[in-house]
């Protein structure tokens, strides 16, 4: 890690809350997937969530932009509470970027059209301006030369970088990453993580569900460990990795770090 980044990473996030999650519960049928989650994410804070599969970490971040509905508790994103009000939901979704495990690019549109869809139709930005911005972000994820190709013609790593650029085009206040590198071939993971690190350097508020512990250690302000629908433990990366408090955390880390 270079020095500038290190300096940046030490920079404490602001005290202003960006996302407040208060006693959130969720069930899938009878399965109690989230059991009383409390979490406040500050502006410019970077949080990594890890935990075994089925622990509810993906469900938690999907609740933040209402891809899943929570059944009890409150979620407040940048001062707006998520309720059944569809206008509020659409407003929050426009402010919250989401990157999926399987990229979910639109295969019938070119890369450029993938990027400009949201700005043109949701933000009502003129096409020329949206394309200019899209090219800027493609440049940023080092993939500008692919702008006129279709997603199917790109490698997984490239597709995921396009997906990140697509979210950035909406000028989001928060970026959510749902296991962004899990579906990638090993040699492509780094190119995606590098883009995410660059994003972190610029002060983006990020919540990342991942098992990339190197990334967590170098980028996160806080690392949370989830198990059985609860946040078991949350701490600075240093403390979390070197001095885990909880038995389950220790077990998980021993399994994942070999």
């Amino acid at each position: 890690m270079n020095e500038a980044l290190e300096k940046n990473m030490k920079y404490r996030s602001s005290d202003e809350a960006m996302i407040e999650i208060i006693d959130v519960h969720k069930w899938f049928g009878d399965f109690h997937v989230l059991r009383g989650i409390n979490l406040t994410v500050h502006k410019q804070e970077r949080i990594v969530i890890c935990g075994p599969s089925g622990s509810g970490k993906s469900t938690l971040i999907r609740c933040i932009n209402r891809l899943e509905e929570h059944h009890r508790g409150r979620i407040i994103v940048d001062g707006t509470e998520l309720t059944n009000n569809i206008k509020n939901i659409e407003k929050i979704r426009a402010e919250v970027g989401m990157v999926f495990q399987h990229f979910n690019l639109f295969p019938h549109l070119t890369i450029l059209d993938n990027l400009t869809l949201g700005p043109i139709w949701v933000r009502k930005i003129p096409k020329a301006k949206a394309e200019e911005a899209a090219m800027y972000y493609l440049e940023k994820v080092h993939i500008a030369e692919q702008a006129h190709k279709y997603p199917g013609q790109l490698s997984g790593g490239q597709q995921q970088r396009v997906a990140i650029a697509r979210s950035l085009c909406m000028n989001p206040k928060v970026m959510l990453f749902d296991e962004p590198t899990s579906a990638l071939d090993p040699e492509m993971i780094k190119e995606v993580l590098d883009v995410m690190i660059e994003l972190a350097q610029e002060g983006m508020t990020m919540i990342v569900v991942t098992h990339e512990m190197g990334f967590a250690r170098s980028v996160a302000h806080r690392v949370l460990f989830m198990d059985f629908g609860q946040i078991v433990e949350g701490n600075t990366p240093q403390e979390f990795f070197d001095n885990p408090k909880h038995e389950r955390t220790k077990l998980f880390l021993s399994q994942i770090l070999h």
Partner: protein
Amino acid sequence: MEQATFETNIEDVKPPATSVGVIGWVKQNLFNGWLNSILTIFTFVVLWKIVPPFFRWAFIDSVWNTTGQACRHAAGACWSIVSANYRFIIFGFYPYDQQWRPFLAMMILFGLLFYSRNRKHWKKSLGYAWILGLFTMGLLMKGGLFGLVPVETTKWGGLPLTLLLSVFGLTAAYPLGVVLALGRRSKLPAIKVLCILYIELIRGVPLISLLFMSSIIFPLFLPEGITINKILRAQVAIILFTAAYIAEVVRGGLQAMSRGQYEAAESLGLNYYLTMRLVILPQALKIVIPPTVSILISAFKDTSLVVIIALWDLLKTTQSVLSNPEWMGFSREAYIFIAIFYFLGCFSMSNYSRKLEKELSAGEESR
């Protein structure tokens, strides 16, 4: 030669099992070839039995421009039935001296259809051209303005009627079918149940009975003195019928879309309408082009069923020519002529759909 020997030697060195396999493979292929040759010979014999006699009947021994009486002495086909009656077959009871009007209307329609083939032409101006074209076609058919003699819709018939029923039937049924498919997948129970009821009821009934209902039962429910045009009623029946089938095909396409596509669109802040219009439908409708075109083709052919409610479409005008004593018995020729019309219509539809499918998937590869 030496080369061949060398290769044979190498073959010999290979393990016995493989050699046996190769021999077996050759044998099997030889046997297969045998069967294939028998089939080929058989096919040629059948073709030899059928094609030259047909050719002789249709082109060499045929008569083209005679009276019905002269036809009876000809050994081959009597194409005179078409050349002598084509005006009636094509235009039905439309006043003879006014038949240039439906002709012109059809030419406008063909022109517009042909121009619309190219996706690059799909602009707003084309939409206006269609509106203008439809208006002109309607005016030409019905008259009553600009010195055109009014022509009752009961006199409309033949090819213009067939085209009217099918072109409008198909273009109106398609969007209706898409809406029904979306409705059937709606989260709102009332809309969902209504759409399911509609689709299942219509699909559970033959088109003929719908046509009967539209022409006989439906008017009974109308208040005294109000009548709705018969052609319009048949048109509506065809639209309702076709839409139900299209809805089910489109629903299949919608179900093929992954949850991720919806989620990606939603997480950009797109609302339901935009998600469907920009992300889901373009993909889903493309997937279902082949079955959709099958439905459109069969709907096009089904328009001929309107004969049972006494509309004089292309098939009915042809039949009535055949009931003329002078031309009785030449049904083969007349029906071949009609079949060519239907074939051209269906073939261009399936051809166009293939072209469209190819264009839409250009550059796009499966994920």
